C-alpha cells in the first residue's frame, strides 16, 4: 500500500524540487522515473487487490496516526481498504502508467516537458489519495491536487491567451466543487465530531460511531452531489469540459476520458451507503445524471473537433453511470466505469490520428465512407431541429447563463465595493481632524 501511494508522491517530490531550484532533470531521466514510478504503483495495487480478494476480509482502515499534531484534533492519516478502493487505485495507476509512456513520446522535446510530468505526478498522487482516502482530510487533499493539476494542464500551452482564459474558467468550477466538498467535511465534523469516512460512508464496526441519518445525511449527501457535479462536469457545470480540451492530448485522455471525470462517480459509489439514507440526494443525483446524459448525447453530435466530441461522449456515459448509482446498481456502475475509462482513454490517445486513420480506411475501401449519423436526428421534428441544433452548437448556453446569473452580478457588486473603499479613504481624510492628517506631513526620511 505504502509503495503504491508513495511512488507517485516521491516522483512529485523529486521532480518538484529539481524544478524549484531550476535544475530540471533531463528528459530520459524524467521519462524513466515516471515509468518506473507508475509501474511500481500499478504492481503494488494489483498485488494488494489480489491479496485482499483471496483473503476474503471485510473493509478495514489502515491508520498511520495523526499527521498534523500530537494533540487532540487535526488530520488522521487513514486509508480505507476494500475491493472498490483497491480496484480504482489499481485502475488509476495502470492508466497513469500507459499515459506516462504515451506522454514521454508525445511531448518529446516539448518546452514544457518537465512541467507536464510534475503536474502529472501531482494528479496521480491526488487520484490515489482520493481512491484510498479514509478521512475527509486525505480525500480533500487528493481532490485539490487533482483540480489544481487539471487547471494548470489546461493552461499547458500558456504562451497563448485562450488556454489560460479557459483554465481560469475550469478552475472556477473546480473551486465550487472543492467548496462543496469542504462544506460537507465541515458539516460532517460538526455533526459527528470526526472526519472519518468510515463514519460517513457507513461501517460494520460498531466502535466507529453512529451512521448519519435524516437531515444531516441529506445535507452532506447533497453537498457531495454538488461536489461531484462540479468535478465530473455534470449539469449545470458542463460548460468547462470543452474548454479543458486546450491541454495536451495525453492530459485530456487521462483527465477527461478516463480518471478525473470518473472521480466523482467513484466518490458517489464510495458514498452509496450515505446516499441510501437520503432519497432527496439520490433523486438529485439521478436527475442530474439523466439530464447530463441527454444533454451530452445531443451536444456531442454537432462538435467540429474530435476532442470535444469525445469529451461530450464521455460525459454521456458519466451521466448514465451516475443514474446507475442513483438506482442502486453499484456493481454495474463500477464495471461500466472501468470499461468506459479504458475505452475512452484509447479513443482520446488515438484522437490525433483520427483523420489519418479515416483517410487510410477510405483509401483501403476505395471510396469515401458514408456518414453513419442520422437516425436519432430523424426522430426530432423538423420544426424543432434547427433550435436543437443551435442549442447543441452553443453547448446549452451554459456559459452564458453562468455569466449572466453569477459572474456579472458578482463583478458589479465587487466593483461597487471597490468604489466604496476609494470613497471611504477620501472621506476620512477630508473629515478627520487636521491634527491627525497633519501628523503625517511632518514625517521624514
Amino acid at each position: 500500500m505504502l509503495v503504491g501511494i508513495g511512488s507517485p508522491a516521491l516522483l512529485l517530490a523529486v521532480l518538484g524540487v529539481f524544478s524549484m531550484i531550476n535544475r530540471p532533470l533531463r528528459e530520459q531521466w524524467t521519462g524513466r522515473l515516471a515509468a518506473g514510478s507508475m509501474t511500481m504503483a500499478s504492481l503494488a495495487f494489483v498485488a494488494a487487490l489480489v491479496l485482499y480478494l483471496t483473503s476474503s476480509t471485510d473493509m478495514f482502515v489502515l491508520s498511520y496516526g495523526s499527521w498534523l499534531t500530537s494533540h487532540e484534533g487535526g488530520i488522521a492519516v487513514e486509508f480505507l481498504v476494500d475491493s472498490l478502493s483497491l480496484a480504482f487505485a489499481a485502475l488509476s495507476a495502470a492508466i497513469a502508467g500507459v499515459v506516462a509512456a504515451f506522454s514521454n513520446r508525445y511531448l518529446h522535446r516539448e518546452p514544457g516537458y518537465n512541467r507536464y510530468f510534475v503536474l502529472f505526478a501531482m494528479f496521480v498522487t491526488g487520484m490515489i489519495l482520493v481512491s484510498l482516502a479514509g478521512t475527509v482530510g486525505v480525500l480533500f487533499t487528493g481532490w485539490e491536487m487533482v483540480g489544481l493539476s487539471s487547471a494548470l494542464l489546461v493552461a499547458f500551452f500558456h504562451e497563448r491567451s485562450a488556454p489560460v482564459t479557459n483554465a481560469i474558467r475550469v478552475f472556477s468550477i473546480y473551486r465550487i466543487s472543492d467548496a462543496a466538498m469542504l462544506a460537507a467535511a465541515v458539516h460532517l465534523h460538526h455533526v459527528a465530531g470526526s472526519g472519518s469516512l468510515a463514519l460517513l460512508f457507513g461501517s460494520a464496526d460498531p466502535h466507529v460511531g453512529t451512521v448519519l441519518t435524516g437531515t444531516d445525511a441529506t445535507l452532506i449527501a447533497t453537498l457531495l452531489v454538488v461536489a461531484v457535479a462540479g468535478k465530473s462536469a455534470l449539469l449545470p457545470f458542463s460548460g468547462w469540459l470543452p474548454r479543458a480540451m486546450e491541454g495536451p492530448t495525453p492530459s485530456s485522455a487521462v483527465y477527461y476520458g478516463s480518471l478525473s471525470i470518473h472521480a466523482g462517480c467513484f466518490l458517489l459509489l464510495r458514498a452509496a451507503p450515505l446516499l441510501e439514507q437520503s432519497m432527496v440526494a439520490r433523486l438529485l443525483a439521478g436527475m442530474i445524471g439523466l439530464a447530463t446524459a441527454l444533454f451530452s448525447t445531443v451536444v456531442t453530435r454537432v462538435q467540429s473537433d474530435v476532442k470535444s466530441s469525445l469529451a461530450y461522449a464521455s460525459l454521456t456515459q458519466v451521466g448514465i453511470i451516475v443514474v446507475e448509482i442513483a438506482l442502486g446498481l453499484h456493481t454495474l456502475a463500477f464495471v461500466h466505469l472501468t470499461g468506459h475509462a479504458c475505452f475512452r482513454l484509447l479513443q482520446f490517445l488515438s484522437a490525433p490520428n483520427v483523420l489519418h486513420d479515416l483517410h487510410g480506411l477510405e483509401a483501403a475501401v476505395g471510396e469515401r465512407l458514408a456518414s453513419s449519423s442520422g437516425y436519432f436526428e430523424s426522430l426530432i421534428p423538423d420544426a424543432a431541429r434547427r433550435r436543437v441544433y443551435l442549442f447543441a452548437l452553443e453547448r446549452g448556453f451554459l456559459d452564458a447563463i453562468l455569466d449572466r446569473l453569477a459572474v456579472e452580478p458578482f463583478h458589479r457588486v465587487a466593483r461597487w465595493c471597490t468604489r466604496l473603499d476609494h470613497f471611504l479613504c477620501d472621506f476620512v481624510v477630508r473629515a478627520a481632524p487636521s491634527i491627525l492628517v497633519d501628523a503625517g506631513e511632518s514625517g521624514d526620511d
Partner: protein
Amino acid sequence: MIDSRVGIVALVALPALVVAVSYIRLDVERLRQYAVSSAIVMLLTALALAITSNARAVLVSGVVRDGAPQGEALLRIDALSSALLPFAAGLWLLTVAVTPRGALDRGGLRRTALATLVTVASFLTESALLLLLLWILSIWTFIAALSDARHRHQRRVVSVYLGLSAVLLAIGVALLIMPMTMGTRLEVVGVWLVALAAVIRAGIIPFHAWVPEVFDHGRLGPAILFSAPQLGAYVTVVLVVPRAAPDLLRVLAVLALATAVYGAGLALVQTSARRALGYLFVSQSSLVMAGLDCTSVSALAGGLLLWLSAGIAFAGLARCVLVLEARRGRLDLSTHHGGYERMPVLATSFLAMGLACTGFPGTLGFAGQELLVDGAVEMFPVMGFAVVVASALTGLAVLRMYFALFCGRRETALDATIHLGLTRREAWTFASLVIALVGMGVMPRPIADSRFAASEEILRTRQGLIASSAVTQQDAGP
C-alpha cells in the same frame, strides 16, 4: 543550547547595528550584504531560541497590579513568542535579500532594520505600555516611508486610520493599567478600545479601506514589512484574548470572517496587482483574527499557525510582485504579461506562495486552516463555511493573478534582448522560502505542537485573569 539572554541581546542588537551602520558612508550594496548577513544570523539565533526555549522565561518583570495573578513581563520568551521571533527575522531576511536594486537606498535599509527591531521588541514583551510605545514607533516608521510628495494622499490615509488606532490603543492601555479600573466597567471599556485599535490595524471591516489604498498607491515594500508581522494580531492575543468577554470575541470573529470573504472576493476582480495584494492581505489577516477570537485550544492554535503561514506566504507573494514590477513596471491584471519561460523560479514561487495563502494541501496554510475549522466548528459552525468560501475565492484570485502575470503571451524577440531573469540571490531566496513552506506543510507537527503549547498558555492566562477579576468584583461588593 543557547542562553535566552544572549539570544535576546543578539536579536535586538543585530537590527540595531544595521541601523547604526546605515549612517556610515558605505556603498548601498555593501550595506545590503551586511543587512543580509545580520538577518541570517538573527534567523539562526531565533530558530535556536525557538527550539531550546520550551518553557516561559521572564527576563525582565513588569509591575504587578494588586490582585492580578501575574505581572506583564517587560521582556520574556514563551511558547507564543518563540515562533514569532524567527518569523520576524525571516521577514527581514526576505526583505533585504530580494528588494530590487532600483528600490534600494540607505534610508530604506535603515527603515527595514528599524521596523524589524520594533517588531522583535514587540514580540518579546507583554507589557501594555511598552506595546503602545512600539505600536506608535512602528506607525511612525511606516509614515516616514511615505514622506515623499508622490505619496501624500496615502500618507494622509495612513495617518488618519493608524493615528486613530494609536489614540484608541493609548486610551485602552491607560484604562487597563490603572489600578483603580481593575475589575470595573472601565477595564471592559479598555479591552474594547484595544480590540478596536487592533481591528483598525488588521484592516477589518469597516476599517479596511486603508490597506488596499496603501498597497495600490503607496510604497509596496514598507507596506509589506509593516503589515506582514500583524502586530494587531499580537496585541489581540496578549491584551484582548486573556481579558475579553465572550461577546466581544464573538463580535470580533464575525467581523473578521465577513472581512475574510469580502477581501477574497474583491481580490478576484481587481485590475491592479498591488490592489489585489492589498485585499488578499485583508482576507488573510482577518482569518488569523477570526482564529484568535476563539477560545478553543484547537481553533486558537489554528489561528496562531495561520498567522505564521499567512504572514510568510503573503510576504513572499508580495515580494514576487515587487520583483516583477522592478522589471516590468506597474502590473495590470486585465491583460496577460507572459514571461514564464524566462523566470520559471519566480513564477513557480508566486504560485506556491499564493497557494499557501489559500490553504492548499501540502502547504503550512492547509495545516492552519484545518486546525481552525476543526476547533471552531463546534462553537461557531458558520466559521467553517466562511473559511470555505474565503479559501475558494482566494485560490481563484491567486491563480488569476498567476496566469495574468506569467502566462498568456509569447515574448517577442525584442523583449528577449533584455535580461529579466532573477539574480542568484533572488532565486535562492524564493526557492528556499517555497521549500520551507512546503516542507513545513508536509511535516507540520513540530510547529503545530508549539502553537498548541502557546494556545494552552494563552487560555490558562485567560482563565486566571477572569477568575481574579471575578474575585475582585466580589470583594468590591454590590
